[in-house]
C-alpha cells in the first residue's frame, strides 16, 4: 500500500513539472517568438496610439456614428463572461427582444411602407384600449407581474415614486394588505401590480417614466412623471401593440441584432445587421463632417464590404464584420464624432 502511495506521489510530481511547468513554458516561448500579437490578446491601437481594445472582444458603442455590436448579457464586461440563460419559453426573452424592436421597427408594405411604427404605438397607447378592454397599463401589469415588479426594482427613483403613491393611497394599500395577510408590511415591489392598476385608472394613456427637467436653482434633474410618449412607451408596449395588430406587415430585423451571444462578448455582427445600421451611421457621419450624405454612405458601405468575412470562406456560415475594426476605421477616417 505504501508503495502505491509513494508511486502515486511520484507520478503526480513528475506530471506537475511536465504539464504545469515545461509545457506552458514551451507554448509561451513559441507564442511570443512567432505570434506576439495574438499571444497578448490581439490588442488594437487607436488613433492616438493608445490601446483601444481587443480585436476578439466586443465593446459597447452608444453613439449613432458607430456600428453597434450584439446586445450583451454580460454588459460587455470582459472579466465576467455571461449569457442570458433565457429559455425560449421564458417570457422575459420575448419581452427583452420586443423592447429592442419597438423604437426601430418599420412597416414593410402599405401606405406607411418604410416608416417607423413607433408613432402608431404611442397613438394606440394614448387611446388606452387593449383587446377591446380599457386600461393598457393595468392589463400589462396583470399579464406580467414579474415585469411590473422588475420595473419597481430597476431604479431607486421608481421605488421612491411607488412609495409616494403608497402615502397618497392609504385605502388601496389597506385593502391590499387585507387580501394578502401573509405580507402585513408590503414593500414597494410587493405592491407593483396594484400600483399600476390604480395608476392606469388615474392616468389613462400614461406610463410613469423619467423626464428631464430643470430644477428651481437651474440644475438639470430627472423626475418620474406620467408620460404619453417616448422610448418607454415604444419599447415596453410594442409586444402588446403587436398582439392588437397581428396583421400589420413589418420589416424583419436581423436576428443577431436582438439576440445576446454565448459569452456576451461576440466581436462580430452579420453583414446583414451592419447594412441594416448603415443608413443611421452614414447619415450621422455626413452631418458631423458636413459632407454629401450619399458619398459618405457609399464610403462606409465600402468599408463594410472590404471587412466582410464568412467562416471557412462561406462554406459554413454567412458574411460577418468585426465591429471594433470597422468602427476604428471610421474613427481614423472621419475623426472623433461630435
Amino acid at each position: 500500500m505504501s508503495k502505491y502511495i509513494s508511486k502515486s506521489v511520484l507520478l503526480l510530481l513528475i506530471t506537475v513539472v511536465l504539464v504545469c511547468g515545461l509545457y506552458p513554458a514551451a507554448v509561451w516561448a513559441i507564442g511570443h517568438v512567432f505570434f506576439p500579437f495574438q499571444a497578448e490578446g490581439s490588442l488594437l491601437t487607436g488613433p492616438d496610439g493608445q490601446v483601444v481594445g481587443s480585436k476578439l472582444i466586443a465593446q459597447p458603442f452608444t453613439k449613432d456614428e458607430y456600428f453597434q455590436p450584439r446586445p450583451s448579457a454580460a454588459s460587455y464586461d470582459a472579466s465576467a463572461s455571461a449569457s442570458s440563460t433565457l429559455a425560449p419559453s421564458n417570457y422575459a426573452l420575448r419581452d427583452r427582444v420586443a423592447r429592442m424592436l419597438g423604437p426601430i421597427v418599420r412597416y414593410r408594405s402599405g401606405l406607411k411602407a418604410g416608416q417607423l411604427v413607433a408613432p402608431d404605438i404611442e397613438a394606440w397607447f394614448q387611446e388606452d384600449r387593449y383587446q377591446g378592454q380599457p386600461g393598457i397599463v393595468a392589463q400589462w401589469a396583470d399579464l406580467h407581474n414579474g415585469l411590473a415588479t422588475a420595473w419597481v426594482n430597476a431604479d431607486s427613483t421608481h421605488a421612491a415614486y411607488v412609495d409616494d403613491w403608497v402615502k397618497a393611497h392609504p385605502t388601496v394599500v389597506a385593502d391590499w394588505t387585507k387580501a394578502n395577510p401573509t405580507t402585513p408590511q408590503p414593500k414597494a415591489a410587493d405592491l407593483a401590480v396594484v400600483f399600476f392598476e390604480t395608476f392606469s385608472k388615474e392616468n389613462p394613456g400614461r406610463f410613469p417614466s423619467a423626464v428631464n427637467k430643470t430644477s428651481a436653482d437651474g440644475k438639470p434633474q430627472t423626475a418620474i412623471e406620467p408620460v404619453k410618449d417616448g422610448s418607454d412607451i415604444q419599447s415596453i408596449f410594442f409586444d402588446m401593440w403587436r398582439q392588437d395588430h397581428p396583421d400589420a406587415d413589418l420589416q424583419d430585423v436581423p436576428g443577431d441584432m436582438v439576440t445576446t451571444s454565448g459569452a456576451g462578448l461576440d466581436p462580430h455582427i452579420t453583414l446583414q445587421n451592419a447594412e441594416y445600421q448603415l443608413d443611421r451611421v452614414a447619415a450621422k457621419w455626413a452631418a458631423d463632417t458636413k459632407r454629401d450624405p450619399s458619398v459618405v454612405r457609399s464610403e462606409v458601405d465600402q468599408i463594410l464590404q472590404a471587412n466582410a468575412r464568412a467562416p471557412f470562406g462561406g462554406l459554413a456560415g454567412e458574411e460577418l464584420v468585426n465591429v471594433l475594426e470597422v468602427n476604428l476605421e471610421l474613427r481614423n477616417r472621419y475623426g472623433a464624432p461630435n
Partner: protein
Amino acid sequence: MWILPISMLVVTVLLAIPLSRYMTRIMDGKYRAPGILRWFEDRLNSGPQNWKQYTVSLLTFNTVLFVFGFLVLALQPWMPLNPQHKGMLSPTTIFHTVVSFMTNTDVQHYSGDVHFSNFSQIFFGFTMFFLSASIGFCALTMIIRALRSDSSVGNFFVDMWRVVAYMFLPACLILAILFVQQGSPMTFKSSHEVATLEPSAMGTLDNGQPKPQTIVVGPLAAFVPMKQLGTNGGGFYGMNSAHPFENPTAFTNFLSCVAMMLFPFGLVLMFGRMLNRLKHAWVIFSVMMFFMLGTVVWAIYFDTLKPNPGLTAHPIAQTYQIPDASAPGGKRAVTLPAVAGLPVDQHMGNLEGKELRFGTSAGATFAALTVDVTDGAVNCEHDSLNPIAGLSPYAGMWLNCFFGGKGVGMINMLLFVVIGIFVAGQMVGRTPEYLGKKIGGREMKLAMIALLVHPIMILLPTGLFAGTSWGVKAENNPGAHGFSEILYQFSSSSANNGSAFDGLGVTYGFNNNPSPAPMARQWDIASGLVIVISRFLPIIAPMAMAAFLGAKKSTPFGLGTLRDDTFTFASLLVGTIVIIGALLFLPVAALGPLAEHWGPLPFGG
C-alpha cells in the same frame, strides 16, 4: 449547414485510424520511448499487477489527486500569479470543483474568469486535465487486458505515464501552436485594462473618468487543447468555448470538435486491435456513430433550421385543462390567446446564446458532440437551445455511450454489449458468450450495478431537488424549463459530462461572498456526491466483470455462437440501447423538454 459536422466527423475518423495503431503499440509496450522518458517509466514501475492491485492503485492515485487539488484551490490567496488578490472559494465549492475535475466531469459551480487566479488555472486545471483523462484510458486498457486473459493486467503507474507523456503531451503541443496562431492568448498576465474607442461607453467611474474595459487573459493556448483532447471541458472562462479567447475562430472551433472526438474514436479501434477483433470493434464503432449522427442531425434540425419559438407567431389559441380542486369536475380550462410573431429575421435559426464566427450550425453541432463524448465544453448557451433540440444533449448524457468519455464510454458500451448478448441468449435459449467466454450470473450482476447507478444517480436527486426548495429556489426559468435545468445538472454530473444549463443558481463564489446563490451549498454537495459515485462504480464494477470473464475457459467458436461482427449484432445493440434508454428516461423527458415544447409558449413573466 451540413458540411461543417460532416467534415468534422470525416476528418476525425481519418485521424483516429492511424492514431489507434499508435495507441495500441504504446499500451502493448511495443513503443520504445527516448531514454530519458524510459528512465521515468522504470522509476514509476511497481511491477506487474492483477486486477485488484490495479484497481487499488487507481483509487490510491485518485485520493492523492484529490488532496493535491483541494490544497491548490484552498491556498489560492497565498499563491503567486494572483495580482487581483482573488480569495478562497467556499469549501463546498472547492470540494465540488476538485471531484468534478478529478473525475473528468468538469461541471463548474464557479466562473474561471471571476474566481480563479492563473496559478489555479495552471496547477489545478492542467494537472487535472491530463491525469483525469488518463485514468479512464487506463481503466479501459486494464479491461481489455483482462478480457484477453493476460497473465498480468499491466501496471497502473506505467500506463498513466505512457498516456500522459507519449500521447497527450505531443498532441497538445501541436494543437497549442495552432490555437495561439489563431488568436488564443498565451500569457501569464491576468488582465489588460483598455480605454474603449468611444470614451465612457462602459460608463464612468466614481471620479468621473471613463470606465476602462477589463479584459481577462491567461495561458489559454496551452489550456484549451488538453481541455478538448482529454474530453475534460472545464472552461478557463465562465462561458467556456463560447468565449472569443477560448475559441477565437471557426478553425479553432473545428479543431476543438476534432480534438474532443479524436481519442474516444481511437479507443474503440484500440479495443479491437488489442483484442485482435478489429471487425467487432468496427461494428461497435458504427453503432456509436449511428447514435452520434442522430444527435447531431436532431440538434441542427430543431435548433439551426427552426426559429426560436419564443419570438414566432403561434396563430392558434390553445386550451389547457388544469387540475383545480375548487372547480366542478376537479378541472378548470385555461385558454391562451393566439400570439402574433415579432418581426425578427430568424433564417439562421435560434441565435440566442450563439456566437456568429463558428458557422451557422456550429452551436447545435457542438452541443450534440460535446455530450456524446462527455466533453462538456460548450460554444453556445444550452439553456437557450430550442426546447426540443435540448433532447439531443440529454440523450447523449443519459445513454453515455455514443463514443463517450476517455475509455469510460467504451466501458459503458461494453455493458450494453454484455446485456444485449445476454438478452439474445435468453431468446434463443443458449448460454450467452462474449469473446468466447460464458457470461454467468456474477458478471450480469456486476454489469447491472454499473448500468443502474447512472439512472438512479440522475432520477433520485432530480426528484429530491425538484420537489423541494433546494431545486425550486435555484431555477431561473419558469415552468417545465426550470425542471429541465435541475434534470440537466444531475444528468451532466452523473454522466461525468460537465456542460450545464447555466441559468441554474449554483454559484456560491468566494467564501466571504455576502450574497451567494441561496441553495449553492446543497448543489455543491449533492452534485459532488453524484459525480463520485457515478464515476467510480461504473469503472470498478466492469473491471471486476472483465477480470471474472477473462479468468474463464474459452469455448471454441461453434455453429450456435452469436457472431459479434455482423449487421444483426449491430441491430441487437441498437435495440438494447434504445429500449433501455427509453424505459429509463422517457418519463423525465416528458416532464422537461417535451412539456416545454408542446406547452404554452411564451410562458410566465
